[in-house]
């Protein structure tokens, strides 16, 4: 019996799809059988990020409405034979699927796979309700911005109301230099408001842009800092206790001199 994890946020553009692709790939790399499900019907992106957009024949709506079997719609990943993608439909919208259909689908996926990662669309309406319908656990993605934290708080409230307790938090796109200057919210400020367990912190990294364009998730990139963060998150999802990455920028001569003299 596998686990169904939904990756949600409320706010758009904070990194749900990137996170889903990376932790899905990371879990597959450690040997588990993983399926990624894109529930953003009408605005599908997970296939692009995974580099599999040319291989789509059937999609999620075809499966839930009975046009095809689940096996026909699943796309095997380019790099890992134990990683699959169930893409969303692009020509329909979120009313094409119901929460009950999603629950049945989740039950079917749990039988075959160790992990099913559900990429939730932005918002709190039908798309969100569809995505959380069959989930066992939830991961909330949030950037260190007031608006994102506000929306994450709302989403956590809705998750708790839907009996998805103890959602875990990923703080994405954090810039340590800005945090040090006081220009960006730091981790403690965010946790103060959201009051949930932190499962990872991912720094802002140019390699994400490059990896998205190439269709190769950053978690496989040994140089990328964001990739390293996602690798650690993958280990934490499996229950391992891993310390948070040290995100401090290495200080140059001037910084060290300043500290010697007494400037902060």
């Amino acid at each position: 019996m596998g686990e169904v994890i939904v990756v949600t946020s409320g706010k758009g553009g904070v990194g749900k799809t990137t996170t889903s692709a990376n932790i899905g790939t990371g879990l597959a790399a450690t040997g588990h059988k993983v399926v990624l499900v894109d529930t953003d019907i009408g605005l599908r992106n997970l296939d692009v990020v995974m580099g599999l957009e040319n291989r789509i024949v059937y999609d999620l709506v075809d499966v839930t409405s009975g046009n095809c079997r689940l096996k026909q719609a699943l796309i095997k990943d380019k790099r890992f034979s134990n990683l699959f993608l169930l893409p969303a439909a692009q020509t329909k919208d979120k009313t094409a699927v119901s929460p009950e259909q999603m629950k049945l689908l989740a039950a079917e996926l749990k039988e075959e796979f160790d992990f099913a990662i559900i990429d939730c669309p932005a918002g709190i309406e039908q798309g969100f309700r569809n995505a959380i319908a069959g989930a066992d656990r939830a991961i909330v993605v949030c950037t260190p911005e007031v608006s994102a934290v506000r929306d994450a708080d709302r989403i956590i409230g809705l998750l708790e109301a839907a009996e998805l307790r103890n959602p875990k938090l990923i703080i994405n796109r954090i810039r340590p230099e800005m945090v040090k200057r006081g220009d960006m919210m730091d981790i403690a400020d965010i946790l103060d408001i959201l009051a949930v367990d932190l499962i990872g912190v991912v720094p802002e990294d140019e390699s994400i842009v490059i990896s998205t364009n190439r269709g190769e998730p950053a978690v496989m990139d040994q140089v990328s800092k964001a990739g390293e963060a996602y690798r650690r998150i993958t280990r934490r999802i499996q229950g391992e206790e891993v310390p948070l990455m040290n995100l401090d920028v290495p200080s140059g001569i001037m910084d060290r001199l300043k500290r010697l003299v007494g400037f902060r």
Partner: protein
Amino acid sequence: MTRTEHVALKGTREGLVLYLDPAADFGVLMKELAKLLQNSVQFLQGASVRCYAGKKEYTEDEHTRLGTVLREQQLELAGWLTSEEVFVQGKSQAYATEDQETRLWEEGMVEGSCLFVERTLRSGKSVQFDGHVVVLGDVNPGAEIIATGNIAVLGALRGVAHAGATGERKASVSAYYLAPTQLRIADLVTRGPEDEADGRGPEIARIKEDQLIVEAAGMNGWRGKAR
């Protein structure tokens, strides 16, 4: 105190009081009174007696009859007592309660039904209650509390709080960490204070002279522990 079934004679600092059972028939009362007085004749002579018969009103005729019986024993009927002037067993509680109520009012206490919310209110949650509201947790931005009475938050108030929602200007809003996006009491609205609430401690907001003001709340014990 000497008594029969429907009549009792009691000595007080102000003289003798004759208790008459208001439910009894007057004839019975007179008979019993005569008997009572006969048995206690020695130490009653010359005294003036005031009568108490609860709420019962006696007729003119009955008054004179009573007066005659008493005079036979050299007792003067001096008047009738009202319930307030008479000490009756079981009435003591009433007096005590009245005292308490006066005390409450002076010390600035307010009573009323109260809703206890034992969790943090997240964004989007709206709590509305006819009465006071106490939150044992935080109120996050985007959450709101609307109460007809006072609002107290045992945590951080970062959302919207509207106390005295139906017009009660004496209502107050208090929190351990008062940093609301908007604060409303009755018909007055104000934004939260601009500066960081860190280190200010518990605060209470109320209307004073037509203005919404925020002042440090008394809670010295809390402050002591925080330092």
